């Protein structure tokens, strides 16, 4: 009941946000220079043909009616067809989603494996400790080196000295799991650098805050082992800010890995949306932005639910 009361307003807000996103995306596409008829029939379109196209696709109706029709189609999973391949856009996205999901999960795993230990270290290390300095350096680098710079560097290193990892040449993990890993590790690593910095800084700040609490002093005075203190008290109580950034980062990875996917020629969602733009296949760009925003909003909503499950104070009115 507590969770429902806490979660329901979040759900309503998320729906309003999603509605706003869809309206913006719809309007943006209406503002593209040159009407639909120009894109479909080329520059030498006659007024009659333009009229026919407008009637056929409902472009002669008021904007609000067009939007509602479009929204209605969306709810039935109809995101239009690609003007290049004539295939339904949604199918094309679903086909590529596993690639992006794999990349995002790998990057997330790296970000947590690197960021959490370093962040805890930076949070509990005394000033001037070597680990703390290392953590600060990694944090500063991770927040500053753009993914395409690191990616280009890795491509250079791994294409000049042909080490075990490969650049480009994506293969499905079902056909060739090892080959898949060889192509996915570099882009995942590239994407994870920013995540490492993000997790590191958040963990450090959260741990610093928790360390001043009375229960840490009590635990220390009781003679609990440092490892247990970190596991039972520090990590548990710094979980919420860490979950917040991790979910935001994951949402960003699922929809926003355009640059890295293009750089490494990974045939995922980001690469697909980018090629949609290059081919002036705007239905793909439109659907891509919409899907990415929807995934982002849903993931953040799941995070809100996770807070309530982890911390019984959330939503109880005693927070």
């Amino acid at each position, binding site marked *: 009941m507590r969770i429902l009361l806490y979660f329901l307003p979040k759900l309503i807000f998320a729906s309003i946000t999603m509605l706003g996103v869809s309206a913006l995306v719809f309007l943006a596409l209406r503002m593209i220079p040159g009407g639909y008829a120009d894109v479909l029939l080329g520059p030498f379109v006659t007024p009659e043909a333009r009229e026919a196209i407008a009637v056929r696709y409902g472009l002669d109706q008021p904007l609000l009616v067009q939007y509602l029709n479009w929204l209605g189609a969306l709810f039935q999973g109809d995101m239009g067809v690609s003007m290049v391949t004539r295939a339904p856009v949604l199918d094309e996205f679903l086909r590529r989603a596993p690639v992006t999901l794999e990349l995002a999960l790998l990057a997330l795993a790296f970000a947590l494996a690197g960021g959490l230990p370093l962040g805890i270290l930076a949070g509990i290390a005394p000033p001037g400790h070597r680990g703390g300095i290392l953590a600060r350096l990694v944090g500063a680098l991770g927040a500053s080196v753009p993914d395409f710079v690191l990616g280009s560097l890795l491509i*250079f290193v791994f294409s000049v000295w042909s080490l075990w990892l490969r650049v480009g040449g994506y293969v499905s993990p079902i056909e060739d799991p090892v080959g898949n890993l060889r192509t996915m590790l570099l882009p995942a690593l590239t994407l994870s650098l920013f995540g490492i910095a993000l997790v590191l800084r958040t963990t450090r700040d959260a741990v610093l805050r928790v360390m001043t609490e009375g229960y840490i002093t009590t635990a220390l005075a009781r003679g609990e082992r440092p490892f247990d203190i970190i596991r039972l008290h520090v990590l548990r109580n710094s979980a919420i800010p860490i979950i917040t950034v991790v979910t935001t980062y994951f949402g960003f990875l699922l929809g926003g890995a355009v640059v890295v996917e293009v750089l490494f020629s990974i045939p995922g969602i980001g690469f697909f949306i980018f090629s949609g733009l290059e081919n002036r296949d705007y239905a793909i760009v439109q659907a891509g932005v919409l899907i990415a*925003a929807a995934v982002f909003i849903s993931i953040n909503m799941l995070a809100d639910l996770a807070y309530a499950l982890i911390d019984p104070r959330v939503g109880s009115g005693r927070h």
Partner: protein
Amino acid sequence: MFSIFGRIDRLSRFGFGLLVFLILLGLIGPYLPLGDPMRIGAGPRLSSPSWLFPFGTDELGRSFLPRVVDGIRATFLLSAVAVIITAIIGTLLGMVAGFFGGVADQVVARGADILFSFPAILAGLLIAAVMGPGQISAIAVISVATLPLFIRVVRSVTLGLASRGFIVAAQVAGASPWRVMIVHILPNIIGAVIVQLTYALSIGMIIESALSFLGLGGQAPYASLGSLLRQGSAYLTFAPWLVLSSGAVLSAAIMAVNLTGDAVRDALEPLKGRSLT
């Protein structure tokens, strides 16, 4: 002023020094004897770094160092313009939302949520589709990505101020809402805005260079560090100095902004996250 500098540590001071150096270099670069960034055939094509061409030459034989110096200016200028415009709009909206509350607050807060849901680069693809690639599009993308940061922070700080005694006193004395906001609230939120400004500048630089790298930023002859990277990436395996030099300078510039931002945050909001040390 000096007490602020006394409090920050060596790494932050290094970052601030680097930032000043890069901005100065970008500003006075054209007057330094670095060579002409536009002169085609100044040296052999794609030659490796030498005393004469410290960053090597590009595929047209242009010296790459003055091109990078020009790129620093372009990157900083575009990102700074975008972020300052965004900061002004975001501060106004955030103040209105936090001060008036009610419907205005709901509209602004939901608007910020909506903008926040667009991943920056995807918003960039959509805006490039609508407006065509270019500098104005890049500024619009940076605004979309950073506006929620300003709105959220200014709104929450204003909300905290609105019930304070000096604000209520000003209202009782008959000050108009706008006068209260400009004269009494604005001076108290400017610190929070400056902290967000440094974060937003670093985000803006990353977005600008990513868009330019994808070919969606300003078009040639405009050349920011991101466009230089794009240009160099075609020759990555046999002329790596193009990508490595522009990439290193770009990363250093963003890091300088980040480190300076940390120092500004520590100076203006000393208690935040620093309760132990």
